[in-house]
């Protein structure tokens, strides 16, 4: 009986390897430097990871559905620029700017969803093209200028990025709330099961009567909703934005999702694991800084961790450490 339990624990550890590594990392670092686990520091890390995290939540749906989204960074710049510009426009103001920005961002998400879902085009190339096209759109909108809110004291717009409620920073609240809602959507609803089915085996899903195109379409719509939320937090936190504020984030987001254990082939991954992936990236960055290392060392460490995480994952699945490639 005890042996059986031990076996179950072993299997659990193998399955939740990334979570175990995370806990070990946290405990080790807190023993070494108690400031690491300080509540202010923890909130600080989560707050600075929130923008990346919110985007990663949406991309998790896309990746589980068996596709990629390389356009999220570019789209985030777009939504931040648009919301700031409309905010400054007297005809809109903050009350109208936010819903209009969400509508525009999600319209672009719907376009990508249409191209990948209904036209069945390769998602890597489509979103690569959209990365470039949306960047062009952003530059056209802003005229190449940075956007700033002129009178920052006169608006409540800063609440999404700078405010706190019950002592918790608002970006952390948004990230947590969105993660909870999306986790339920993915794990407990028929839609969530369909996303797994489409990503796991698209043909089988189609033959089971699952509307593959529509499911893929909605994963991109969810992704663009998350991107719009991230853009809102970003714009509100800095009360201004550059045209390139989200540049390169698409790959960091993907790194977090992969670190969480989602397979790029689709069909696996969870919202919870993605959150862990985001937190690992955030806390590693913070830990290295507290250790007095250069900021850029985190990129190298992230590289090593991503490779090790994915390698261990597939090594456990195939039961051999080294690949079978001749």
């Amino acid at each position: 009986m005890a042996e059986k339990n031990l076996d179950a624990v072993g299997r659990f550890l193998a399955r939740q390897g990334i979570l175990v590594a995370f806990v070990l990392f946290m405990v080790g670092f807190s023993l070494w430097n108690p400031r690491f686990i300080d509540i202010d520091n923890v909130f600080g890390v989560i707050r600075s990871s929130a923008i990346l995290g919110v985007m990663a939540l949406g991309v998790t749906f896309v990746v589980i559905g068996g596709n990629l989204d390389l356009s999220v960074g570019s789209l985030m710049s777009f939504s931040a620029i648009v919301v700031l510009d409309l905010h400054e426009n007297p005809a809109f103001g903050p009350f109208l700017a936010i819903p209009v920005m969400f509508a525009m961002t999600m319209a672009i998400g719907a376009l990508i969803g249409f191209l990948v879902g209904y036209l069945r085009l390769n998602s890597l190339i489509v979103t690569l093209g959209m990365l470039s096209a949306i960047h062009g759109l952003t530059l056209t909108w802003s005229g190449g200028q940075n956007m700033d809110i002129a009178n920052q004291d006169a608006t409540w717009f800063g609440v999404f990025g700078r405010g706190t409620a019950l002592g918790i920073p608002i970006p952390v609240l948004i990230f947590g709330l969105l993660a909870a809602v999306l986790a339920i959507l993915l794990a407990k609803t028929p839609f969530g099961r369909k996303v797994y089915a489409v990503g796991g085996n698209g043909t089988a899903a189609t033959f089971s009567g699952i509307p593959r195109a529509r499911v893929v379409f909605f994963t991109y719509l969810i992704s663009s909703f998350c991107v719009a939320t991230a853009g809102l937090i970003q714009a509100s936190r800095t009360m201004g934005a550059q045209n390139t504020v989200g540049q390169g984030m698409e790959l960091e987001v993907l790194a977090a999702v992969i670190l969480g254990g989602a397979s790029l082939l689709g069909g696996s991954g969870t919202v919870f694991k993605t959150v862990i992936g985001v937190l690992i990236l955030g806390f590693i960055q913070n830990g290295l800084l507290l250790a007095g290392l250069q900021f850029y060392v985190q990129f190298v460490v992230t590289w090593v961790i991503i490779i090790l995480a994915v390698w261990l994952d597939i090594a456990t699945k195939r039961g051999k450490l080294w690949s079978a490639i001749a």
Partner: protein
Amino acid sequence: MKSDNMSNLIKNGAIWGFIVLELIFFQIAGEFWSLSERAFMDLDNMLLLLKQSAPIGIIAVGMTVIMINGNIDLSVGATYALCAIVMLDSMSWPFMESLGDWAIPLAWLFALLTGAVLGLINGIIVWKTGVDAFIVTLGSMLGYRGLVFMYNGENPTYHLNWTMVDIAEWDLFGVETPALVFLAVALIVWFVMTRTVHGRNAYAVGNNREAAVNAAIRVGPHMLINFVLIGFLAALSAVTFYSGSGSVNPNDGMLFELWAITAVVLGGTKLIGGAGSIVGTFGGVIAIQLLRKGLGHIGADTATVNLVIGLILIAVLFLDRQLNVKGKEELKV
């Protein structure tokens, strides 16, 4: 069978047809909208275009081989920047300075070696761990960029050597060094891909890896060689460009991987591997550079260029799919 040939002809010729269309369009549109007195299809302008397309072009040639293999390399931009820094920084090492102009070939060698080693690292990881090349190179894209920043922080690295600039701006009948290097690289890799065993293996591995293994192709070392090749070519691209400019920023080369992939896909190479050609990629590189230059010629800004290139990429994908599906009784799912 005949319609098969026809559709192949359309597919292979499409990129050249597109280039001709671009040339005609910008020539005519330039008459109306351009502020410049010069015609678009001016010889000097075309030579300049070839030179400007060299940095991305050299990398795109390597990317074609990688993608024919069914792999992808996202780390080329970071490799490019790191090699440029190694080259320019090594010029000011004390022992190098004492060598005078003989330091130049040595600096090039350091850069090219760096590129080859970075490619080797990617290749070994792909081979030995079996992790997908997309993930491996996504990781090393971050890692190599981290090394770039650790080298010199956010400061630019520069070293201006006039002999080196002279070499970079040397020309043969008006074709400058970068363009010559691009043409030579394209020619050599084209030869390798069409006339040698390695080239034939590249298609075999991309087409059906299992079958390639059964045909006694050593897939691991084969892919390793290709990753070393693309690392080397990214370094060569950096060498040709930065010998002339003499200054590199740590953010240089960002998005190069995406430009290179765009050019390769426009040239007809499939993401799933097994199909594609160097000639097509050459056309893709030229087509993109023509578009950037042509839109600039008629007064459009970068915003429009980005927008148009993105939309064209999606349109090409759509058309390609339509052409491929036609006549192939594919299961409608």
